[in-house]
């Protein structure tokens, strides 16, 4: 993120000011429940500082100024804050989040602006929750304890907490990054309501046990399952990142072996996803289709490098070997459960509508939908990226070529979808931030053309 815009600074300043005003009455509170405030604040600060493995760290400190509760849901540890809102009068509850938010390490840049924003945001949310809770008569319900009425008051408080948090987030997003308030607010609110509600239940249990004869010791136990849950969630993210890195490495190995420009496979994935969105597929299918695009040529790992980079024309025998790569790829990914439909796309991405493709010479709608999408995306990227033996063609020329081949080689619906998607969003191939890599030893630059290139369409092998 670039420098913070001045209006965003003013906004943060206002939030801090209001939070301070909310906290001011705590100074002359007749009998401030001081030890409770200190204990809860220390708990919150402690749970913020416990090193949750990598993933939650940055998410919690806020990649953007917008808070974490907005994003993944279980970024910050809300149960302590909500327990504070249920237990303490509003002006005292405001103090609970402050030490944790102000002392959070590695807050990102600029650190103090972010920290004070975070502190003010949480303080205001807790203040609102505490007020609503008190107004509904929640203090008596918790102290009683009167169930199920206590659940109702807690629900009201959670709603207020969530609304305040996300409204403030939407405001800063609008000022700092120009996102329209309405859309971002409803999105943030709906996404964070469920996790905050679960945290709210834990907070309610904490408050009830805190006031019970068993005291704060029992209340502390409530935090343990919540913490384990966050920890496992972080592990999940780490493992998922490792998995994605593995897949990326796999396709880089293919790209290098093939002498393609780096990132061909990932760009095919991106184009496939654009087509999927245009066709109105749901997110899950679009994601699988992206993997189909990324992994479409993985079978080339099984083709001797010598053939893939052969200088000069191929003998029919050599061509036959290269044309085995869809089947190799299918054989390789057979065991990967989540790929589902993508496996058929890998097997059939060289089929052509008129039946002259391989490996099976399927015709028209016999070819799986995913395979028809990947074929178009593959050809498009092959034409628009620079190869060692020719320069890249401009996007309009490539689209023209695709439209010319639609019907015989490509599915016209997919070509149309790609044209529409490019009209709307343009073509910004993701530059994968990859560093040095020598997966398979870097090849000598290939001298001659792609083997067995179908001149029309130029979709690679």
């Amino acid at each position, binding site marked *: 993120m670039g420098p913070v815009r001045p209006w965003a600074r003013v906004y943060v300043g206002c939030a801090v000011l209001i939070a301070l005003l909310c906290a001011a009455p705590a100074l002359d509170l007749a009998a401030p429940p001081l030890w409770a405030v200190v204990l809860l604040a220390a708990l919150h600060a402690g749970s913020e500082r416990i090193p949750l493995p990598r993933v939650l760290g940055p998410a919690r400190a806020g990649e953007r100024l917008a808070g974490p509760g907005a994003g993944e849901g279980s970024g910050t540890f809300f149960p302590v804050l909500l327990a504070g809102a249920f237990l303490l009068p509003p002006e005292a509850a405001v103090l609970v989040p402050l030490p944790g938010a102000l002392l959070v390490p590695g807050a990102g840049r600029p650190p103090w602006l972010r920290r004070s924003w975070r502190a003010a945001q949480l303080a205001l949310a807790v203040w609102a929750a505490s007020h609503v809770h008190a107004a509904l008569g929640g203090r008596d319900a918790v102290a009683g*304890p009167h*169930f*199920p009425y*206590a*659940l109702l008051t807690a629900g009201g408080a959670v709603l207020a907490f969530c609304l305040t948090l996300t409204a403030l987030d939407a405001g800063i997003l609008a000022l700092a990054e120009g996102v329209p308030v309405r859309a971002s607010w409803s999105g943030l609110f709906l996404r964070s309501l469920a996790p905050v509600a*679960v945290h709210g*239940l*834990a907070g*309610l*249990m904490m408050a*009830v*046990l805190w006031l*019970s*004869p*068993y*005291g*704060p*010791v*029992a209340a502390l*136990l*409530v935090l*343990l*399952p*919540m913490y*384990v*849950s966050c*920890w*496992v969630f972080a*592990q*999940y993210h780490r*493992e998922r*990142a*490792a*998995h*994605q*890195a*593995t*897949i*990326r*490495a*796999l396709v880089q*190995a293919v790209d290098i072996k093939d002498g393609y420009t780096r990132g061909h496979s990932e760009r095919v994935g991106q184009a496939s996803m654009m087509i999927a969105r245009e066709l109105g597929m749901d997110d899950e299918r679009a994601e699988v289709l992206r993997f189909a695009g990324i992994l479409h040529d*993985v079978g080339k790992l*099984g*083709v*001797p*490098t*010598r053939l893939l980079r052969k200088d000069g024309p191929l003998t029919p025998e050599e061509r036959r070997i290269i044309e085995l790569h869809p089947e*190799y790829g299918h*054989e*390789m990914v057979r*065991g*990967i*459960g*989540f790929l589902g439909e993508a496996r058929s796309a890998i097997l059939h991405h060289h089929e052509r509508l008129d039946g002259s493709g391989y490996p099976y010479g399927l015709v028209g709608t016999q070819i799986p939908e995913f395979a028809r999408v990947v074929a178009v995306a593959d050809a498009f990227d092959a034409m628009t990226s620079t190869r060692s033996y020719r320069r890249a063609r401009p996007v309009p020329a490539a689209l023209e070529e695709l439209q010319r081949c639609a019907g015989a080689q490509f599915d016209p619906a997919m070509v149309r979808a790609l044209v529409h998607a490019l009209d709307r969003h343009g073509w910004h191939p993701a530059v994968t931030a990859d560093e040095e*890599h*020598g*997966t*398979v*030893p870097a090849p000598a630059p290939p001298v001659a053309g792609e083997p067995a290139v179908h001149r029309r369409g130029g979709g690679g092998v």
Partner: protein
Amino acid sequence: MSAGRITLVLARTAAAILAAGSLVLILWRGLDHPAVALAFGMLVTVGELARWSDGGEREPAPLGAAGALSYALLGHNAGQPDHHGVQQVVTVVLAATLAGCVPHAARGRGSTADHLTRRLLTVAFAAVCFQPIHEHGRLHGWGGSTYALLVVALLVLTTLCDAVLAAALAHSRTRWPFGPLLRDELRATLGIGSAVCATGAVMSLAVAVVGLWALPVFSLPLLLTQLSYRRYAAVRTTYRQTITSLARATEIAGYTPAGHARRVAALSRAVGRELGLSGPELTVLEYAALMHDIGQLSLVDPVPAGATASLPAEEQRRIALLGGAVVRQTGVHAEVAVVVERQADPYREQPVSARIVRTVNAYEEMAREGTGPGGPLSALERLRLACARDYQPEIVESLARVLQRDGLTLAVTG
């Protein structure tokens, strides 16, 4: 009956006697506070129904366990004392667990008998520790916080006993060494085990304060934890599948015979387990064994039959280094790359996982060369002769034990 099975039979007999005795007593005497018993029974049943389908997890039904433990440690309900006794706890948990196991058993998943044995013995232990003290009113003078600490201490003790019991059962079933099994169980206790423990304690205390409303309210966080675990397990499975696919690349490219990587991985895991490696170490070993030949992808021409063990040492080491470079790219744990890199070094310079991979790989290749039943035997003989430098004698012997135990089938079918 071998000595190892005795533990299993003993545990099952004890659980059966306990269950039958409690059931008879309760049928004769009737239930005390049936509404409370029903509520806890339903909680346990729901927990069992939401059980993990794959059997690889340490605590397959966290909510069921937490519910059962909290019932064992329940002293009051909404401020009123509740004396239900050990027999009633055992009976309720038995009935609820059986009810929850029906769908799983119908689909033929998981071993219900072992699961039930563990659950009953653990719950009975907790109840025997707590209920008599409570019944005799010895806790009356205690402060609330002390009482809460007592509950936690009892739960910790119970969890430790459960870990020992689980390790003993696993040991008698699989004959893997007891020490590493216990270590793995205790490590798992820190994760989901601690969440179960805390939830059990909180539920029994919260029910004492607010009554049965506490059950649904506090089930949610634990269900959330279980959900997180399930997603974690799912992504781990996918990851393993991807690594296996990557390993298959060398086979499809014709560098190594079909199924070689998978067989080496399975055999390496068995040897590693025999030698007492822990869970995470076994995972590293397995991934490294799957990818040990990946360096061959970088070769211009395939090694004949993919048999690297018969190549000159320099060439072996070069391929190993290439493989390490590939593995480093894949984002797999760096330890895996180290194992792959060092697989061709003399054993004294290797980490133990690399020694295992090297030995097993050599065995797999040599056993394939020889035909007929003599192949594996002569392969072992050749490994023993090369013990001076290339292969560690202890690992060769461990491999021989694994092969003998599994009747050499592992090597053939993978």
